[in-house]
């Protein structure tokens, strides 16, 4: 019993640490890439760590009071670290016993809801607009994530993520999972708040949206949370839809997974630099079409492709 508990604790710690400390690095790589396409030199790839340090050292200003308001940054980051412990990162999910795919979907949307709340609570018109945009984006992107994961669940006949991954490893690529993966990737672009879907933040329109009133340590934690979110979702994408090659050796699997995650995030950054921001109605229309297309994956799954 103790050994099992120790193992869970250790692998939880591994996932959480990986998510926390790898996410600024990924952000740094994405910034560097963007700079290259802009014909700029760009900041060093360690810059996001320094950004966090700098923000964490600043005065903590709050535009409004309340216990809930003051704990929202921590809750947001916490929800994403919980998500990190619920998904596989090169190994089985540490908290697999605590919940399956359904829990993952709920926990994944928690951070968006919390950021929405902080926006509505901060009493700025820009934050309110940002929060309502965030809500619209969440409503149009969430079904796509659900459908994509559901395809896997249908194929593997299990709701447990580890089961889906195992099934994928054993059965190899299939049309339905490929379509599901593409849909998941498109949704990831929006979940990570990347152009052309950084509509809720939209600096030039609503000055950062829900987070307009956040500064110093609070902003640092929100930033960190958003970077973690994009990394964890990229892990989820890579593990569920692209688990090959699978060596069965933990360290080797972890390293290949990280490489694949960096490739996915590079793609995300590439799409970001070659697109202007869409309007929220255009983005919703777009994701509506993606959602209907991803239903095709379910159809393929039914006929066993």
């Amino acid at each position: 019993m103790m050994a099992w508990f120790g193992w869970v604790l250790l692998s939880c710690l591994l996932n959480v640490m990986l998510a926390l400390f790898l996410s600024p690095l990924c952000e740094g790589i994405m910034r560097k890439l963007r700079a290259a396409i802009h014909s700029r030199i760009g900041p060093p790839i360690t810059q996001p760590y320094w950004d966090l340090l700098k923000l964490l050292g600043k005065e903590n200003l709050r535009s409004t009071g309340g216990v809930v308001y003051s704990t929202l940054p921590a809750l947001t980051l916490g929800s994403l670290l919980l998500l990190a412990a619920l998904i596989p990162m090169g190994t089985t999910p540490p908290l697999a016993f605590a919940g399956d795919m359904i829990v993952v979907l709920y926990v994944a949307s928690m951070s968006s809801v919390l950021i929405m709340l902080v926006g509505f609570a901060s009493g700025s018109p820009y934050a309110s607009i940002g929060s309502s945009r965030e809500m619209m984006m969440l409503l149009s992107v969430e079904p796509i994530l659900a459908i994509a994961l559901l395809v896997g669940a249908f194929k593997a006949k299990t709701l447990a993520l580890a089961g889906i991954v195992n099934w994928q490893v054993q059965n190899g690529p299939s049309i339905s999972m490929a379509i599901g993966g593409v849909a998941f990737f498109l949704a990831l672009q929006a979940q990570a708040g990347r152009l052309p879907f950084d509509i809720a933040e939209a600096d030039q329109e609503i000055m950062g949206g829900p987070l307009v009133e956040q500064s110093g340590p609070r902003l640092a934690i929100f930033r960190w949370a958003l970077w973690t979110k994009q990394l964890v979702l990229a892990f989820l994408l890579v593990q569920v839809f692209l688990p090959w090659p699978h060596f069965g050796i933990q360290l080797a699997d972890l390293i290949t997974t990280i490489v694949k995650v960096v490739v996915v995030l590079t793609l995300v950054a590439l799409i970001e630099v070659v697109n202007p921001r869409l309007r929220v109605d255009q983005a919703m229309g777009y994701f509506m079409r993606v959602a209907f297309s991803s239903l095709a994956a379910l159809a393929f799954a039914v006929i066993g492709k």
Partner: protein
Amino acid sequence: MHIVDQAAITRVKEVAAARSNGAPSAATQPHADTLHFAVDKRAMRSVVEGLVNELQARFMISVGTDKRPITGDFAILHLFSLDADHLYVLLESPVSEKDLRIESITQLVPGANWAEREFRDAVGVHPEGHPDPRRLLLADDWPEGVYPYRKDFPYNYQPPPVENVRPQMREPPAGASVVPMGPFFPVLEEPSYWRLFVEGETIVGCDTRLFYNHRGIEKLGDSVLTYNEIPYVAERICGICGFIHSTCYCQSVEKAAGIEAPRRGRYIRTIMLELERIHSHLLWLGIAGHIIGFETVLMQTWRIREPVMWLCEEISGNRKTYGMNTVGGLRRDLQNQMKPKLMETLREVEKEAIAVRNAIVGDTTLQARTKGVGVLTNEWAKKICAVGPPARASGVAIDARIDHPYAAYDEVVPQIVTQDAGDIWARVLVRVGELLESIRLVREALSAIPDGPICAEIKEEIPADRLGVSVVEAPRGEAVHFVMTGGENRPYRWRVRAPTYPNLQALPAMVLNETIADVPITLGSLDPCFSCTERLETVDRRTNKIRIYSGADLLEISRGKGRRGGAS
């Protein structure tokens, strides 16, 4: 130079005579392309109606002048352009100090809205029947009844401060809420306050307060500076189209005084003006990209723009604000041995500009954000008297370089670029087209430039009481300078109208029923330049002391600074 058709002049005179209600208007012709009518103020509205309805005259600007030291009255002057006839028409009407009112023409010409409010604020002549008589030019704490452009008002006078004043803003319609944009906002380079009335994300109306930093440059021009000092101040009206304003000012004085700038000087002016258009349009493309989050466009266009700035530096010694213009021509020649380098840089810039154009034209997401958005209809563009790319993108084929040729544009003739859709996409296409056209023009001017002097010798003093009107097609549209000469080696009245002045007035109609997300890019698509419009200046202030300032402290500091620094 275009010879103005005698028949056109006769037509204008007939219309003016027929509309003068029995009090005939005295016509003079201060310059070959300028007709001046002294109109009775009771007949003003009907003469304007005749000009606009029968001759399709385009309103340019109004000038309020305190002529009491000369004639005993104030004078209100409306400036019109008959673009097809290459003719300016000036309607001037004396307004007695005993009855400081004149009929408003805004109902006839919506584009005269700000111009009339401005002369009310400046000299105190009230436009009667104006639909929106709120304050425009003066600060909110400026006392009532103090008119800074009157001749008995010293240029450095500071009225006593007033506490707790707010701009008079309209309330939103029932059911709508307010989203403020400005006075300071990420995508606005300069202060302007837009109150957007929204239902959800949809704009149902808007109100605006501008002129936050009026510098009083015109006042300096007719009270402190001399003819040859003004070009340097005029160049500082704008950070982007500085050369345009100094050229426009010099040309208006040259016209008033009957000075002919030499051909070589005119060619160099043309080259510099077109170089400014090239770098301004590239700058605009970048900013437009930035507004909709397309940073790659910003970074690449500004990289392409840089060699043009270096060229300007090599020609004039400065990237911007060249200080080359003077009344009568230029102070600095363009070295002939620079020609090959200019040609080489132009070739590079053209190659990359074409690459950018091809990338932009094929971008579907970009089109999704700009097509059918921020539409300025052809009809409203004419009514609000829009100029420049916004007008040309709405199918109004006006271009000062063609309609009122100046510098060397009579020999180096530009091709006008127009579009009919009137949306942001059309404005993008117009500007990209003009960018490539400007490159061609510089090239043509460089190969045709004659040798000779660059500045005319001015032997006599510039006579008083002469009028000069000049336009220059800035990258943002037509800039207008009006000069009435005076004694003491300075103008009696100098009036500047930047292109953003009419174009900004079109914005409320353009954002109606759009979403909040579209407002920044719609405003950006006008390429607004508030400092030109308001003729203002911003000041950087640095302090090492750490101290928490209250609103009242800041007010006090700004006033103290104003008092020390003289005119604000």
